[in-house]
C-alpha cells in the first residue's frame, strides 16, 4: 500500500510541476526572447536560451517609448481610484448595514442591478456623458469614471455584516456619531477586507485598457496597457522588432509580478474572503 501511495504522490508532483511549467512558460519565453537579437529570434527551430544575451534590448525598448510616463500614469490613476473606492464603498457599506433609512432597500436593489449589468455595455453612453462633462482626455475623467465599483461595495458590505453587533451598540451607547463608529470601531476590524480591496482594485486599474483607451486620445495620458499596445503598433512595427516588444512587455509585467510576490498573502486571503462571500 505504501509503495502505491508514494507512486501516487510522485505522479501528483509530476503533473503539478508540468502544469506549473506550462503556466509559467510564456513568461520565460518572453524573457528569453527579449534577450535575443533580431536575427536569432527569427531562427527556426527557436533556441531555448539566447546565444548571447542582449541586455541592451531592455534599455533600447525603455527609450523607444515613454514607458516611465505610462507607469506613472498607471500608478497615479490606479492609486487615486483605490483611495476613492475605499472611501465610498466603506461609507456605502456602512449605510447599507448599520443605518436605517427608507431608501435602503431601493439602494441595495440598485447595487444588485449594477452587478448584473455588464459594465462594457454602458461604455458608449458613458463616453458621451464624459464628453458632456468635458472630462474626456483628462486625469479627472479617468479617475472619476472608475471611482466606484459594485464589487467593492459588496465585498465591504460582506465584511461589515460580520462585525459583532455588541461592539457597535457599545459605541452607540457611548454617544458616538456614525462617522466615529465607522472610523474607530468597524474599519479597524475589517482592515484585511480593505487591504484585499486595495490590492485587487489597484491591479485591475493599473492594467486597465478598454475604458481608458476609449476616453483618452493624448498619448501622455496612456496607462501601461495602452502604452504597450501603441509601442507594439508603432515602435515594434506590429511584430517586426520582436525582441524589443518582448522587452517592453517584460517591464510592463514585472512590477505586477513583484507586487504579487510582495502581496501574495493578502491576495490569497482575498480569495478566502471572496470564496466565503460566494457561499452566500
Amino acid at each position, binding site marked *: 500500500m505504501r509503495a502505491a501511495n508514494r507512486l501516487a504522490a510522485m505522479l*501528483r508532483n509530476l503533473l*503539478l*510541476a508540468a*502544469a*506549473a511549467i506550462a503556466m509559467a512558460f*510564456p*513568461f520565460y*519565453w*518572453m524573457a528569453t526572447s527579449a534577450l535575443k537579437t533580431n536575427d536569432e*529570434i527569427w*531562427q*527556426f*527551430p*527557436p533556441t531555448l536560451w539566447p546565444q548571447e544575451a542582449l541586455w541592451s534590448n531592455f534599455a533600447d525598448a525603455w527609450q523607444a517609448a515613454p514607458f516611465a510616463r505610462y507607469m506613472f500614469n498607471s500608478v497615479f490613476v490606479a492609486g487615486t481610484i483605490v483611495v*476613492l473606492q475605499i*472611501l465610498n*464603498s466603506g461609507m*456605502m457599506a456602512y449605510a447599507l448595514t448599520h*443605518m*436605517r*433609512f*427608507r431608501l435602503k432597500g431601493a439602494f441595495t436593489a*440598485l447595487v444588485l442591478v449594477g452587478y*448584473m*449589468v*455588464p*459594465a*462594457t*455595455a*454602458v461604455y*458608449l*453612453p458613458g463616453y*458621451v456623458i464624459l464628453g458632456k462633462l468635458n472630462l474626456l482626455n483628462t486625469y479627472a475623467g479617468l479617475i*472619476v469614471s472608475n*471611482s*466606484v465599483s459594485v464589487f467593492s461595495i459588496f465585498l465591504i458590505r460582506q465584511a461589515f455584516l460580520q462585525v459583532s453587533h455588541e461592539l457597535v451598540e457599545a459605541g*452607540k451607547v457611548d*454617544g458616538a456619531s*456614525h462617522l466615529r463608529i465607522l472610523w474607530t470601531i468597524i474599519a479597524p476590524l475589517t482592515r484585511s477586507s480593505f487591504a484585499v480591496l486595495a490590492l485587487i482594485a489597484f491591479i485591475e486599474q493599473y*492594467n486597465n*485598457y*478598454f475604458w481608458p483607451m*476609449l476616453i483618452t486620445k493624448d498619448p501622455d495620458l496612456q496607462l501601461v*496597457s495602452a502604452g*504597450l*499596445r501603441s509601442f*507594439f503598433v508603432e515602435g515594434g512595427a506590429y*511584430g517586426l522588432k520582436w525582441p524589443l*516588444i518582448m522587452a517592453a*512587455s517584460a517591464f*510592463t509585467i514585472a512590477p*505586477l*509580478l513583484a507586487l*504579487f*510576490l510582495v502581496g*501574495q498573502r493578502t491576495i490569497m486571503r482575498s*480569495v*478566502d474572503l471572496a*470564496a466565503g462571500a460566494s*457561499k452566500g
Partner: protein
Amino acid sequence: MNRFRLGGELKALLFTLPAMVPLTLFWFVPLGYVVYLSFMEWDFMSPDKLFVGLDNYRNLLVDPAFYQALRVTALFCLGSVIPVIVIGLSLALLFNSRMRAGAFYRLLMFSPWVTPTVAVSIVWSWIYEPEVGLANSVLRGIGLDGIRWLQDPQWALVGVLIVTIWKSAGWCMIFYLVALRNIPSDLLEAAELDGAGGWRKLVSVTLPLISPTTFFLVIVQFIQAMQAYDQINVLTQGGPAGSTRTLLYLYYQSAFDAFRIGEASSVAIALIVGCVLLSLVSFFVGRRTVHYS
C-alpha cells in the same frame, strides 16, 4: 437614541452619496441613455439624432453579422468557462496539503491573472507566429504541420480561447483550493469506510460540497467571457472574417469604428439582456443544484 432618528435619513443619504453619485452618472444614467440611443440613428458628430423606432432592432435581427456574433459569443463563453472550471478543479484536486513545493506551484499558476491582458496577449501573438513561433515549433517537432493560428478563420478563436483559459485557470484553481480545504475530512473518511473509491468520493461527496464555489466561478467566468475585449483587440481585432467577433466586439466596432451609434446601442441592449438572463437563469439553477452546508 433620538440622535439617530433626527436627520438620520439625511445622514444616511450623505453616507451613500460618494458612491451613488458616480454610480448614477456612470452606470444608471448611461443605462437609460443606451436604451434611448437604441431607438435613434446617430453618427456621433452631428448634433441631430433621428428617431427610427424599432428599426435598429429589426435590422439587427436580419443581420448575418449579428447571428455570427451570437454564435462566436456562445462558442467563446462555453469554450472558455468549461475548460477553466475543469482545469482549475483538476489542478486543485492534485494539490495535497503535505506538498512542499505546493506554495511555489500555486504562485506560478496564479501569476497569469495578475498581469495585464494586453501584455500577455502580445507575448502569445509571438508564440502563435506561424513561421517561427513556439506553438508551431512544438507542432512541427511532433510531426504535425504548423497552423496559421490567428490568421486562420478556423483556428483564430481557438488561439484566443487558449490565452483566455491560460489567464484564468489559476484563479479558478485557487478558489477550488479554498473550497476543498473546507471540506470536513470526516465526511470523506465516512465515505471511504462505506467502501467508496476515489471517483465515487469525488462525485458523491466532493463535487456537491464545492458546488457553491462552482456556481460562483461559472457566473463570474461567464460574465468575464461576455465582456472579453483586451485579448481580442490585440490578437485578432474580431477577425479573420469575423471568426472572433463576439457580441461585445461587434458592439465596440459599431460604436467606435463605424460610428453607427443606434445600431451599436441595440447590440449593447442585446448584450445587457443576455447578461441579465444569465444572472436570472443561474439564480434559479443555483437554487436547485447548489448545496449550502
